[in-house]
């Protein structure tokens, strides 16, 4: 599905992403974990196209995306959610999702026909709202949603573009245990049709969901493999997981 080869990003003197090789297989949930500042969000930004790659290649379903602009990558089937909630705050929940659906269905260079009359857009938006658990909040202005609901909308906006691969950047950031459970259930539901690259600090969630895990430390992938292998990896434990998790 996705293959990174020697991906590199330099911010001045800081090597944020250092020759990262990473492969995400079709249909899997692949978790990318690592301490703060390891370069996880930078990789997400590079893959989604909001940041250029200084070196290396990004292959998506066999196609080289490295020099493609962000909107073309979305068209190719790649979507992302943001660590810091990024929604259209003054739009209603329904309008938020309809706008994302619109990006993948037909041309938006239509200046004359009222968009409000496009039933198909809003039907699909409602279906997404249902999926992320916001069907009772459709007409609410997004900025007025509770934090957990905004996070759900954040994921919904990514799903509404009908991606093949979705990059979820800490979807459970700032959530209570109950809300986290809802996002975990959501990811469980979509895993059948979407491949997921998941960046997350909640290790319970990561070990419950992920089929494979890659560990990023100081811009380098230090380990990649099945959850048991990662848990057992001495270097990973020293660098990130610590002993409590290995014990638990």
């Amino acid at each position, binding site marked *: 599905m996705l293959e990174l080869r020697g991906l590199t990003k330099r911010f001045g003197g800081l090597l944020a992403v250092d020759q990262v090789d990473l492969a995400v297989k079709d249909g899997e949930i692949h978790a990318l974990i690592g301490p703060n500042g390891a370069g996880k969000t930078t990789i997400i930004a590079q893959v*989604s196209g*909001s940041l250029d790659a200084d070196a290396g290649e990004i292959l998506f379903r066999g196609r080289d995306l490295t020099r493609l*602009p*962000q*909107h073309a990558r*979305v*068209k190719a089937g790649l*979507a*992302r959610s*943001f660590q810091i909630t*990024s*929604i*259209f*705050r*003054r*739009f209603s929940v329904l*309008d938020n999702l*309809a*706008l*994302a659906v*619109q*990006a*993948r269905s*037909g*041309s*938006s*260079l*239509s*200046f*004359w*026909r*009222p*968009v*409000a009359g*496009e039933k198909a857009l809003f039907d699909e938006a409602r279906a997404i709202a249902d999926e992320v658990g916001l069907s009772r909040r459709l007409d609410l202005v997004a900025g007025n949603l509770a934090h957990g609901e905004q996070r759900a909308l954040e994921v919904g*906006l990514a799903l*509404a*573009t009908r991606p093949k691969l979705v990059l979820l950047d800490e979807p459970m950031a700032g959530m209570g245990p109950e809300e986290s459970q809802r996002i975990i259930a959501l990811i469980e539901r979509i895993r059948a049709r979407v491949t997921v690259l998941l960046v997350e600090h909640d290790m319970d969630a990561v070990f419950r969901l992920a089929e494979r895990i890659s560990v990023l430390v100081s811009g380098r992938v230090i380990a990649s493999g099945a959850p048991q292998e990662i848990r057992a990896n001495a270097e990973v434990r020293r660098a990130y997981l610590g002993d409590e998790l290995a014990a638990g």
Partner: protein
Amino acid sequence: MKKTIFVLGLAVAFPLVMNALDQAFYIGFGARVLIYAMAAASLNLVLGYGGMVSFGHAAFFGAGAYVTGILAVEGLRSAWIAWPAAVAVAAAAALVIGALSLRTRGVYFIMITLAFAQMMYYVFVSLKAYGGDDGLSLPGRSTLGFGLELGDELTWYYVVLVLLAAVLYLLHRIVHSRFGRVIEAIRENETRAAATGYPVYGYKLACFVISGAIAGLAGALIANQSSYVGPGLLHWVQSGTLMIMVILGGVGRFWGAPIGAAVLLTLEETLSGSEALGQYALHWQLPVGVVLLVIVLYAPQGIAGLIAGRRRA
């Protein structure tokens, strides 16, 4: 819909009432309000809906005016040629200025649009062949055919009204279309709009060009209005005036620009000619400034927002 019919009725009746009151002078004033409403509406599209604070909109307004003026002086007075030419040149100017300016954001965008407009201002100031500093007097208004004499104030008023209505209808369609939604989404959250799959720069540029084209049409009309074009039309004060109209009326409110144009020009007309104010009439901008201050502080949605708020309450 009711609101639209009410406003349209008011605009249609205005010159008839003025004639009946023996105040035909105000028909010309009314046409001027309509023209500025069109120019301000074009700015509201980029500023209010697109979130692009263009501080150089006079460039497109003035370009449209000069195209009409220069063609008229050269003997080409047909509205069917001069006005589309004005629109085309203004759109082309918006394409070039927009393509460069839209690479910047925020304060830089404000400054660079201002700089481009001032550059164009100085170009026309030094254009001696067409009046330079003194501007250019037109031999008369454009010719339209169909037995319509635009020199007649009443005919002129209604022609301008028809064009303004057509432009407002077009803008209404645009802001409610797919394109309009994307433009508003970009204003709301550009990062997310890009991540959702919209080529943000292209959409903003398209919006900017449409806006510039409409400002160009307004410019063609203002050249006819007084049969005179001068570099003052491109001066930054003109850009500021359009911006004040939009802010007074309501940024991003559909009726904001027409309301703002009507209110500002009416204030100017009554205050600057007021005999009660005597010698102080010269300083008519002062009370206008106070009004603007109150609006910005207490009604950020402008007068249109106030009206809508009352109706809802």
